[in-house]
C-alpha cells in the first residue's frame, strides 16, 4: 500500500518535468496509512497509532479516556498534530487529546519523524519535532453526491452513529493533461481527480459509552465507574477550485461531557475513586487557499480561528475524598500562515513560510493571570532534487511574546515574557538503486513552555526556557515488486537528546509543585518495519511487522541514583503484527501489539517494573454491493463488521493506575452510496 502511494506522488513528474522540484518530497513519512483502504475502520485513533514504530500512546482507558501520543520519547509536547495541514494545539498544556478524533473522519494518517519538507507547508510544520498528519481527504466527486452512514456499537453501552455526505456543484471539466489540475495536491499528496468546481461535505457523529468495564484489582474484580462519555461532532466543509489553484474552508464543532474515573488506588469502601466531570465545547474554522501564480511560483494562505471551552468540576458532594474544584476555562487562538515556494531552477526550489498566532487563556481560577501569547514562526527552506538524490536545508525562527494580567493592574506586564529559538535542520535523500532508498536528517527543534508550566497559580514558573530536542536519524528503505507480490523493509536507527526538559517537582507537599528546566534525556532507538503483500485476482493479503527499540535514558544529574536509567513508561522493546486478508468483500484483520518491560519510575528496580503485555484484536467484515441507483453513477454498498478486541482478555495498563478494558466486541453496519 505504501509503495503504491509513494509512486502516486512521484509519478506526476510528467506535467512539468522541468519543475519536478515542485511536487517531490525530500523524505517520506515513517508511517503512512490510508484508512479508506482498511476493510473495517477501528473505533479509536489509538488503535491505529499505537502500532506505529517509535510511538508511545498514553491511554488512560476507555473510549473517553485521555489519549496523547509521544514520538521517539521526545515528549508529547514535541509532536505536532495537523488536521489537513493546520496544527491543532492547546497552549494550556500542549496535550492534544486524541480521544476527540475518530478514525472514520480521516482518509489518511501519516507520521513524520524530523523532517517533512514539502513545498507550501506552514512554518509550524517545519518547527515540530515530529508531526502527525490527519488528512480528511478532498472528496473526489465529479458531480452528484455520495455519502457514508455508519452505525457502530457494542459493549459497555457504546453507540456511535456517523454520517458523511458530499455534494458536488457544477460539473468537472475534463482536466487538461499536464495542467495543474492533473498534478497531485502538493499538500496532501492526493491525486486530484476530475473534481467538480465546488464540493460541499457535511459530516457528524455521536458517541456514547458508559465506560463500565470490569478490571482486576489484586484479588478482586471491580467495575470502572464514572468513565462515561457523550460527545457530538458536526462539521461542514467546502472545497473549491479556481484557475490554477484551489481552496477549502471548514467549520468544525465538537462538544462532549465525560467523567474521569481516576487512578485505581486503595479506597475505603464507601468512597468512589473519582466523581470528576468535564464538559468541553470546541469550535474552529480553518481554511486554505493554494495558488500557482506562474510556472515557477506558488503560494498558500491558511487561517484558523479556534475557541475551546472547558468546564471541570470534582463534585465533592458525590465524593467526600475530593478537593473542591469547579473551574471554567476558555482558550481562543487565531492563526494565519503564508507559504511561498519558488522553483528557481529545475532542480532547486526555495520555500519561505511564515506563521503568526495569537493564544489567549481565560479561567475563573483564583489569582489567574489570563495569559496571552503572540508567536511568530518563519521558515526558510531550500531544496535540491536530482534524479536520484534530494537535499534540503531549513532554518526556522520562532519568537513568542507572552503577556499576562498582573493582579493589581489590568494591563499586560512584560517581564520574562519573550522567548525565541532558532531551529536548523538538514536532510538528504539518495536512491542508488530502484529498490533501495536512504535518507538521513539532523534537526534541532524547541517547544515553548505551556501556559500551565508558566502561570499556573500553585506551580508555575515564569523563568522557564523552551525545551530543546536534537534529533539525528537515518532511514533505509528496501522495496521489491514482482507480479502480485510486494515486499518492503524500513530500517530507522536514530538518536535524540532532549535538554532543559520541563519537569514538575513537588516542593514541600504533594499539593504544591514547581516546574523546572532540569531534565536531560538521551534516546537511542531503532525502528524496523517489514511489509509484504500479495494482490492477485480476488485476493488481497497484507502483512506488516513492526519492531521498535528505544533506550531512553535519564541523563539529568550524574550524582542521582537514577542517572542512566530508562525513563518512565518507555518500553525497551515493542512490536506489532498486522495481517489482513480481503477477498470478494470478505475481510479479516488480525492485529497484535506487544509492549515490553517498562518501569513506572526512573528507579528501574523490580518494585516499579511493569510487566510486558500482548493484546490481540480481530476484525471481520463483509461488504455487499447493492444494485445501482437509477442514474447509475456510483454503486452503493452495505458492510457489516464485527471487532473482537483484546480477544485473550488480557488485563493491562498503559499508565499505572488506569486499567484498560478486557475482552469486548463492537459491531458496525455501514451504508455507502
Amino acid at each position, binding site marked *: 500500500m505504501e509503495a503504491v502511494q509513494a509512486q502516486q506522488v512521484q509519478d506526476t513528474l510528467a506535467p512539468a518535468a522541468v519543475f519536478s522540484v515542485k511536487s517531490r518530497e525530500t523524505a517520506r513519512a515513517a508511517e503512512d496509512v490510508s484508512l479508506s483502504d482498511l476493510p473495517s475502520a477501528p473505533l479509536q485513533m489509538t488503535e491505529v497509532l499505537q502500532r506505529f514504530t517509535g510511538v508511545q500512546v498514553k491511554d488512560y482507558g476507555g473510549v473517553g479516556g485521555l489519549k496523547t501520543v509521544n514520538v521517539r520519547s521526545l515528549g508529547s509536547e514535541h509532536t505536532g498534530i495537523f488536521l489537513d495541514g493546520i496544527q491543532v494545539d492547546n497552549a494550556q498544556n500542549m496535550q492534544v487529546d486524541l480521544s476527540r478524533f475518530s478514525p472514520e473522519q480521516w482518509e489518511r494518517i501519516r507520521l513524520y519523524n524530523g523532517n517533512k519538507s514539502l513545498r507550501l507547508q506552514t512554518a509550524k510544520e517545519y518547527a515540530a519535532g515530529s508531526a502527525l498528519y490527519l488528512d480528511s481527504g478532498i472528496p473526489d466527486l465529479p458531480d452528484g453526491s455520495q455519502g457514508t452512514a455508519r452505525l457502530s456499537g457494542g459493549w459497555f453501552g457504546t453507540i456511535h452513529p456517523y454520517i458523511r455526505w458530499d455534494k458536488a456543484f457544477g460539473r468537472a471539466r475534463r482536466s487538461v493533461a499536464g495542467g495543474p489540475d492533473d498534478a497531485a495536491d502538493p499538500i496532501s499528496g492526493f491525486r486530484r481527480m476530475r473534481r467538480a468546481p465546488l464540493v460541499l461535505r457535511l459530516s457528524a457523529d455521536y458517541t456514547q459509552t458508559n465506560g463500565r468495564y470490569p478490571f482486576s*484489582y*489484586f*484479588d*478482586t474484580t471491580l467495575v470502572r465507574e464514572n468513565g462515561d462519555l457523550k460527545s457530538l461532532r458536526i462539521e461542514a466543509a467546502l472545497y473549491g477550485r479556481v484557475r490554477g489553484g484551489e481552496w477549502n474552508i471548514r467549520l468544525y464543532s465538537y462538544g462532549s461531557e465525560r467523567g474521569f474515573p481516576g*487512578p*485505581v*488506588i*486503595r*479506597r*475505603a*469502601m*464507601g*468512597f468512589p475513586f473519582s466523581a470528576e466531570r468535564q464538559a468541553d465545547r470546541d469550535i474552529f474554522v480553518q481554511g486554505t487557499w493554494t495558488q500557482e501564480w506562474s510556472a515557477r511560483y506558488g503560494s498558500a494562505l491558511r487561517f484558523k480561528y479556534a475557541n475551546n471551552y472547558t468546564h471541570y468540576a470534582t463534585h*465533592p*458532594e458525590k465524593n*467526600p*475524598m*475530593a*478537593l*473542591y*474544584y*469547579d473551574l471554567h476555562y476558555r482558550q481562543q487562538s487565531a492563526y494565519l500562515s503564508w507559504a511561498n515556494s519558488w522553483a528557481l531552477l529545475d532542480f532547486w526550489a526555495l520555500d519561505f513560510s511564515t506563521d503568526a498566532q495569537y493564544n489567549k487563556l481565560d479561567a*475563573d481560577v*483564583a*489569582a489567574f493571570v489570563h495569559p496571552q501569547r503572540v508567536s511568530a514562526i518563519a521558515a526558510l527552506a531550500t531544496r535540491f532534487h536530482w534524479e536520484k538524490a534530494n537535499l534540503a536545508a531549513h532554518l526556522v525562527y520562532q519568537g513568542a511574546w507572552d503577556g499576562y494580567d498582573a*493582579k*493589581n493592574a489590568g494591563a499586560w506586564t512584560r517581564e520574562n515574557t519573550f522567548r525565541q529559538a532558532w531551529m536548523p535542520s538538514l536532510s538528504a535523500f539518495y536512491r542508488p538503486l530502484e529498490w533501495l532508498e536512504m535518507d538521513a536528517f539532523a534537526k534541532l527543534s524547541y517547544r515553548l513552555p505551556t501556559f500551565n508550566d508558566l502561570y499556573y*497559580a*500553585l506551580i508555575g514558573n515564569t523563568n522557564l526556557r523552551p525545551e530543546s530536542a536534537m534529533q539525528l536519524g537515518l532511514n533505509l528503505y528496501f522495496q521489491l515488486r514482482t507480479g502480485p507480490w510486494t515486499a518492503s523493509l524500513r530500517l530507522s536507527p536514530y538518536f535524540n537528546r532532549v535538554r532543559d526538559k520541563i519537569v514538575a*517537582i*513537588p*516542593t*514541600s*507537599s*504533594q*499539593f*504544591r509543585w*514547581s516546574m*523546572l528546566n532540569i531534565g536531560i534525556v538521551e534516546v537511542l532507538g531503532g525502528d524496523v518495519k517489514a511489509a509484504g503483500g500479495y494482490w492477485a485476482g480476488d485476493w488481497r493479503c497484507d502483512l506488516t511487522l513492526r519492531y521498535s527499540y528505544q533506550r531512553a535514558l535519564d541523563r539529568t544529574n550524574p550524582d*542521582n*541514583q*537514577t542517572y*542512566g*536509567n530508562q525513563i518512565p513508561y518507555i518500553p525497551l522493546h515493542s512490536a506489532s503484527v498486522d495481517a489482513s486478508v480481503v477477498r470478494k468483500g470478505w475481510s479479516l484483520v488480525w492485529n497484535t501489539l506487544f509492549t515490553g518491560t517498562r518501569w*513506572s*519510575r*526512573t*528507579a528501574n*528496580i*523490580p*518494585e516499579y*517494573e511493569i510487566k510486558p503485555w500482548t493484546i490481540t484484536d480481530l476484525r471481520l467484515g463483509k461488504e455487499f454491493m447493492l444494485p445501482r441507483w437509477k442514474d447509475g453513477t456510483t454503486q452503493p454498498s452495505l458492510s457489516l463488521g464485527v471487532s473482537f478486541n483484546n480477544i485473550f482478555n488480557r488485563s493491562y495498563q498503559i499508565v*499505572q*493506575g488506569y486499567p484498560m478494558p478486557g475482552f469486548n466486541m463492537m459491531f458496525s453496519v455501514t451504508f455507502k452510496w
Partner: protein
Amino acid sequence: MKKIFFLLLAGAMFLCACQKEGPSVPPAPSRLPAEICQAFAENHQGVFQLNEGQMGTNSATLDFLRFASGHYSRDVFRPDGGASLGDVGNDVAIIGDEVWMVINNSGIVQVISKTDCSEIAAIQVPMPRNIAFDDTYAYVTSWNGAYVTSTYIQDTEGNWVPQITDYKNPKGVVYRINLETKQLDAQTVEVGYQPEGIAYDGGKLYVANSGGLQLPPDSNYGKTVSVIETDTFDSVETEVEVGVNPKNVIAGGSNRIFVTSLGDYGANHSSLYYISTLTNRASKQADYVTAVSVCGNTVYGIGAENEFDWEGPKNYFAWKWTMTGRQQRLSSPAISGTALSGLCVLQSGDDLLWMVTDQGDYVNPGSLDFYWKGEKAWSETTGICPGHFAAL
C-alpha cells in the same frame, strides 16, 4: 553494577513474619553497623517508618527497622490478598500493641499488630491527616473536602481584594475512633482550614490549622492551633496563635506541646513554637525547622536557611533546643541531603542516633540516613517519600 548496588541496599523482607508479596528478585539482607544495634537493641525493639508514596499511584508502604538484627525491611504490611497499603501514608503512631496508620488519599485509618504486622482493622475516615490518642479514643484530623474558590473584585478604592465565591464544607474536623471497638464516632468537632498535626495532653487536644490550600498572594495560611476538651468533644475551646502554616504538633510530656510551622514559602521561614498547656500560650523557640524529634527534655531538629530554594542544593544543619536554653546549632552531625523530610533521634547513654529521611526527587525511592556519634554511619533505601516515624 547498578543491580548489585540496589540489591545490597534492599533490606531483608520477612523479619516481621508478615504476609507480603515480595519483589521479583529476592534482595540480599543488609545490616546496620553492629555498634548501633548493640546500643539500642535492649531498650528499643525497632522503628516503623511510613512512606507516603506518590499521590495517585497507590504506593504508600510501611518499613520496619529491627535493632536486634540490624535489618531494615521495606513494605512489611499489606492488607489481605497482598493488595497495596494505599495512597499517601501520612502518619503512623503506636498505642499499646497496635500500630495505627493514617492513609490520607485512601480515606482509611489502618490498624495492625505491632508484633506480627497482622491486620486488625481498616476504618473509613474522609481525608484523614494525623492521629493522636488518649485512653479511650484515637483522634484523627480531616480536611473534610476543604477548598475555597475565590475571585478578585475591586473594592471602592479600586484595590483588588479576594472574594470567596463558593466553598463546600470548608473547615476541617476532628473525628474520633473508639480504641476498643474500632468504630468511627458520629460526633465530630469542627476546627480551622486544613487541620494537620494533632496531639493530646492532659484532657485536651491541640490541632494545627494549616490552611494551606488557599491561594496566593494572601496565601491564607492558617496560624492557629485549636484546643479541644476531650471530655465534651463538641467545639473548640480556644485558639492559640503560632507561626504561619502550622503542621506538626507533638506532645513533649509534662504539659509541653511543640508546634512546627512551615512558613509561607516566601517571607516567613519555618519555625518551632512551644505551648504550655497550663497557659495555652505559644512562644517561638527556634528557626529553620524542616523536621524535629522530641527526645526527653530536648528537641532536636534539622533545618536549612535556603529551605525555599527549589533549584539549588539545600544547606542543612542540625540544631537542638532545651527547656533552659535557646536554639543551638550543632556542628555534629553534619547533616546533608536533597529533600529532607523526617527526623527521629534516639539516645543511648550520651550518644545520639539521628535517623533522617530524604525524599530525593519525590517520585523515586528515598533514603533513610543514620548519623551515629556525629558521623553518617549508614543509609537504607526506603519507599517513595519517606518521612514518618514511630519508635517502639
